[in-house]
């Protein structure tokens, strides 16, 4: 008898928990599900997206939420694997009933979730993947990008390099989609902007190449004026380190997209190479505006570190969600999407508009050169040039062409 009652009690407790869980979730919140890689080297970038998003959401909720509802979010670790990330996204839609999906740094996964979002009619806000296909060839009504992509980086890189006196180039990079996309983007635009440039040769290494030295010595033997390094994600930091060890940066200047980003430079500390040209969406020390300073102070007070580029993506995404729902006037997915199209929001990097045609945030790009600076135990970017969002965006004609229209 006693045993039975114990089981009954347990059952009752479990039931109570389950029941309590259901109405609590249904109680008028806006649910955001984030799938991203939170383990391994990629977490250097993704943690900032999540932490800044939380910072913004906490503020929104403290101020009374959106249309009287609070924003609530849960995260899932994709472990940089497409299958794990995709099933996590499904789980977030089916079981958690999320209103919005967010993520991810892995381009293959971002494209897979984008297809799922299209099928399930759930808005998917991309916060780090740099594949131009997301809002280009594979774009659709339910996907939005809050980060620059390889097409934009290509244009920005070319615009910056065209102003420099180099003519003989060498291209080297990761032998996968991102590497080739960046290299083609920079090179094709550079040829248009400065017809005199000449390509001496190319080298392509495998993703995760452990030893860059033989590549660097072979490139230096060709004596180019400058080198375009098309490497991304986990290979940026090792490459910069190899550049420093071999003295590459002292022999020949090289351009590497994201080289100047805090996430890339911080792990190397003062051992990072100086004089590397890089492009990025954000620096915590630039632009020196009131908005940016306020954002940096808030982020630093909360997490005791400087915000890297991902923080802007996360912070901006939360603000876009709030403003879009307010503009829509009610919590409705289709109205939310209509409102998000063409919406302009004030961010730490100035006003950013979500382009209505391809759902790509028109972010400005900053080109700078790495340098040691007083007061920092890592390198920062100097001689920063702003390349405005309008200039780096692929034209709508290009997007139409990519989508086969």
């Amino acid at each position, binding site marked *: 008898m006693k045993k039975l009652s114990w089981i009954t009690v347990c059952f009752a407790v479990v039931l109570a928990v389950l029941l309590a869980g259901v109405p609590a979730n249904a109680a008028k919140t806006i649910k955001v599900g984030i799938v991203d890689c939170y*383990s*391994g*080297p990629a*977490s*250097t970038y993704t943690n900032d997206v999540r932490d800044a998003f939380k910072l913004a959401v906490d503020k929104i909720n403290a101020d009374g939420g959106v249309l009287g509802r609070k924003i609530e979010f849960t995260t899932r670790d994709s472990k940089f694997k497409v299958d794990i990330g995709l099933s996590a996204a499904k789980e977030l839609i089916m079981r958690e009933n999320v209103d919005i999906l967010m993520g991810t740094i892995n381009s293959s996964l971002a494209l897979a979730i984008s297809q799922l979002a299209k099928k399930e009619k759930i808005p998917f806000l991309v916060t780090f993947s740099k594949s131009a296909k997301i809002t280009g060839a594979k774009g659709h009504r339910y996907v939005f990008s809050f980060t620059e992509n390889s097409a934009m980086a290509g244009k920005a890189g070319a615009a910056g390099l065209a102003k420099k006196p180099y003519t003989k180039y060498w291209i*080297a990079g990761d*032998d996968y989609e991102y590497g080739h996309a960046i290299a083609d983007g920079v090179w094709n635009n550079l040829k248009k902007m400065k017809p005199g440039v000449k390509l*001496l*040769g*190319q*080298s*392509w*290494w*495998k993703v*995760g190449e*452990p*030893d*860059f*030295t*033989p*590549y660097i*010595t*072979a*490139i*230096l*033997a*060709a*004596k180019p004026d400058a080198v375009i390094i098309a490497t991304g994600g*986990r290979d940026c*930091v*090792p490459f910069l*380190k*190899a550049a*420093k*060890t*071999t*003295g590459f940066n*002292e*022999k020949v200047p090289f351009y590497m997209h994201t080289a100047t980003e805090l996430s890339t430079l911080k*792990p*190397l*500390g003062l*051992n990072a190479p100086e004089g590397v040209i890089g492009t990025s969406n954000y620096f915590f020390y630039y632009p020196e505006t009131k908005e940016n300073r306020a954002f940096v102070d808030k982020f630093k007070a909360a997490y005791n570190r400087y915000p890297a580029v991902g923080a802007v993506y996360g912070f901006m995404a939360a603000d876009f969600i709030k403003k879009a729902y307010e503009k829509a006037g009610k919590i409705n997915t289709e109205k939310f999407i209509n409102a998000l199209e063409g919406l302009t929001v004030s961010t730490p990097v100035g006003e950013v508009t979500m382009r209505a045609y391809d759902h790509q945030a028109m972010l400005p790009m900053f080109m700078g050169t790495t340098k040691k600076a007083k007061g920092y135990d890592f390198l920062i970017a100097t001689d920063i040039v702003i390349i405005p969002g309008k200039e780096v965006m692929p034209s709508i004609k290009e997007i139409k062409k990519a989508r086969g229209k």
Partner: protein
Amino acid sequence: MEFASNITIAAIFQQVLVGLSRTTILFIVASGLSLVLGVLRIPNVAHGSLYMIGAFLAYTIATLFGGGTAGFWLALIIAPLGVALISFIAERGLFCHLYEREHLMLLLFTFSFTLVFGDLVKLVWGSDYRSLSAPVFMQGSFSIFDLPFPRYNLFLLVIGPLVALGLWFLTNKTKIGKIARAAAVDREMVGAVGINVSRVFAAVFVIGCFLAGLGGALVAPTQNITQGMDHAIIIEAFLIVIIGGLGNMWGALLGALIFGLTDSMGILLWPQFAIVFPYIAVIIVLLFRPKGLLKSTW
């Protein structure tokens, strides 16, 4: 398809030197693997993990001593010893009970160790990149025939032959080396003449793993210390051991030379497709010498 414009005699010479310095790392790691494979008959998949631990330990030790020149040298000595200690515990505690098992069991067992070591590294050092810099006088490069050659690679070129010489001395001139070579051929006979084979095996295992740690510590200043470096090296090390002849130390040297030189020359001659060169070399060797270039001890 355009060929690179940078192929000159000087460039080839320089690229050979760079390839030889890569060979040094590959040889040090592969010779340790080969030693354990030849004498103990253990296909130690966890060898790569010990290499990774060596690199992480080198980082920690160098940072502990202020990250300067002294820290670097201490790291180079202490990190491999630390790895040797870990392997000693593993050998006495676990491996020594398993020598009689079949190879597949041992393979699975050491594979499980790669997972355990991988997670241990994640627990101790986290998932971030770690970076160790070479001492100031070894940073940068100097000119050979007007082409820059990294100083640290020159240091590796000095270390490589020293390790090879040390291994030759160990296996040919010391008692333990001679016993180990005998035990590799006939373990029971060596035991029958009254030698404590178990102790010899422990020593050989520890020396083999010491080499993995040394490889890791040496490579630390040239690349980022991160998870996943264990998988990258173990595949290369096994290929080298296979083309050289299982368990043959000089085979490991030959294999490392083939691997390191085809890699660096491929990068110079045909940079777009450089990735495949070492693997093509492996395929060619195995087509003509399926058992490896030199005599296998198996």
